[in-house]
């Protein structure tokens, strides 16, 4: 087992090396036209160091070092450290996601416990679920009249469906046997909800939570590109407007790593409530 994971790790490193090698080869300076380009640059009165092509590995490393060495600087609205931008994005996601949990879990409980409610609300859920959360943006901007809160609303609306559906499904499919045990023991409804149904449905609810956090993190980038101001999505768009590909690539990597960490966090929670039958 240990050997297997060692092998896998080694292979991952090989893949990374191959990828970086291809990157390095693809971005090597082109020697034959270098001289002409230099002269042209001199003629144009610019420094030869300026490169606006695809960044080399060296340039990427430099960008990494500068961003990570000072992640929290703030030099006006268009120049903030990556830490601050991430903080804004994570704050929006956390808030929207929390509101979604607070609404979806209790509501899902009710829907799951009542087959009537389940069937009555199902058509609405089925129609609302596939709507791209960004499609809500104009409506949110018009009604809320605040771009920051609109962003949070979009996160809320995209996280709410998987949570709601999974909670309702988890609650509805709690084993009859366990409910019968609670019945024969004359367990009160509130205790039944917290001591039987909630732990029984928890793994399913957290599967929904995991899907939701994934979607929320996907959507926040797009939402911030639209809304602007702050956040990692705005950072990407801003750096694109600056034609700074190095920073764009750096941001893409950060988005990936943070998304992975969020997923890992919920997966840990899920592991804690999962039971073996």
């Amino acid at each position, binding site marked *: 087992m240990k050997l297997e994971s060692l092998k896998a790790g080694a292979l991952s490193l090989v893949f990374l090396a191959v990828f970086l090698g291809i990157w390095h080869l693809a971005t090597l300076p082109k020697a034959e036209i270098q001289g002409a380009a230099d002269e042209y640059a001199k003629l144009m009165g610019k420094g030869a160091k300026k490169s606006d092509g695809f960044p080399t590995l060296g340039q990427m490393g430099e960008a990494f070092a500068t961003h990570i060495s000072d992640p929290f600087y703030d030099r006006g609205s268009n120049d903030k450290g990556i830490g601050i931008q991430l903080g804004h994005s994570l704050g929006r996601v956390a808030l929207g996601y929390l509101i979604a949990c607070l609404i979806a879990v209790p509501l899902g409980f009710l829907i799951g416990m009542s087959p009537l409610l389940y069937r009555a609300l199902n058509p609405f859920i089925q129609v609302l679920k596939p709507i791209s959360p960004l499609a809500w943006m104009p409506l949110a901007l018009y009604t809320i009249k605040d771009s920051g809160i609109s962003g949070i609303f979009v996160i809320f609306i995209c996280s709410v469906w998987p949570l709601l559906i999974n909670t309702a499904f988890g609650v509805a499919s709690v084993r009859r046997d366990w409910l019968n045990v609670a019945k024969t023991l004359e367990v009160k409804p509130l205790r039944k909800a917290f001591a039987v149904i909630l732990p*029984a449905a928890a793994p399913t609810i957290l599967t929904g939570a995991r899907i939701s956090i994934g979607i929320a993190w996907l959507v926040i980038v797009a939402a911030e590109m639209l809304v602007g101001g702050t956040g990692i999505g705005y950072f990407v768009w801003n750096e694109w407007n600056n034609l700074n590909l190095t920073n764009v690539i750096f941001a893409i990597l950060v988005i990936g790593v943070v998304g992975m960490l969020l997923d890992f966090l919920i997966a840990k929670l899920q592991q804690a409530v999962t039971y073996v039958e």
Partner: protein
Amino acid sequence: MSFLQIQDLAKRYPESTVFEGVNFAMDKGEFVCIIGHSGCGKTTILNVLAGLDAASGGTVIMDNREVAGPSLDRGVVFQGHALMPWLSVMSNIAFAVRSRWPEWNRIQMQVHCQKFIDLVGLTGAEHKKPSQLSGGMKQRVGIARAFAIQPKMLLLDEPFGALDALTRGTIQDELVRICAATRQTVFMITHDVDEAILLADRILLMSNGPNACIAELVDNTLARPRDRHRIHHDPQYYRVRNHLVEFLVNRSKLYQSGEAARPAHPPVVRPGVEDAPPPTPSAKIVNLRP
């Protein structure tokens, strides 16, 4: 007046009748087994007694009160043990005990649970999860949970059906011992003729469903205490066994067609003691276990 009285119980669906005209009574401390083929409504009767299912007609009176809905007075051991997999053995039992005595403190609760864990021979497994237990051990936890709330009556829905013969034997012995010690009133469903003879004071025979009825009340004339290893040396054992097997193989299907009269109050039969039908030799080798 008997401890438990079942009068004219029936379960009907629009398209069919499962059983009707079910009448019987049980005394306090009695162990009654019910035997019948699948589909005759044994489990439905048990669920009505438990309050988990509603009958279409008739009444159940326990301890001078009509049974309506579930109650802590009736403990149920479920067929599929029904333990909560996220709770340990101790917590599963404590869940039941807390329902019965919510005012108890942690120490009282623990002492009480431990007593019943020891009773079913699970000392040392208190903190294991059900997934870490064998099928037999899980069923013991189910039994401990039902006994721990000290109900007036215990309902067992084929509790050993899923166990292998060896494990079944040991748990049967334990049940005999616990019931002898506690004088618990027990109503149990079984498919196993030998199990019924070992455990029951009386055995209810149900005819085939649909339109099932209770055909006979068989008095188990075997003397107590009964030992699983020596019971088959008793000639009386075969008289009772043959009577049960003969019913299940040949007579249980006659009631639907009207070849045998449906008794309003099932006759009490004491095989081998008074005018019992002669044992059929062929019935001895019929294997009825599922």
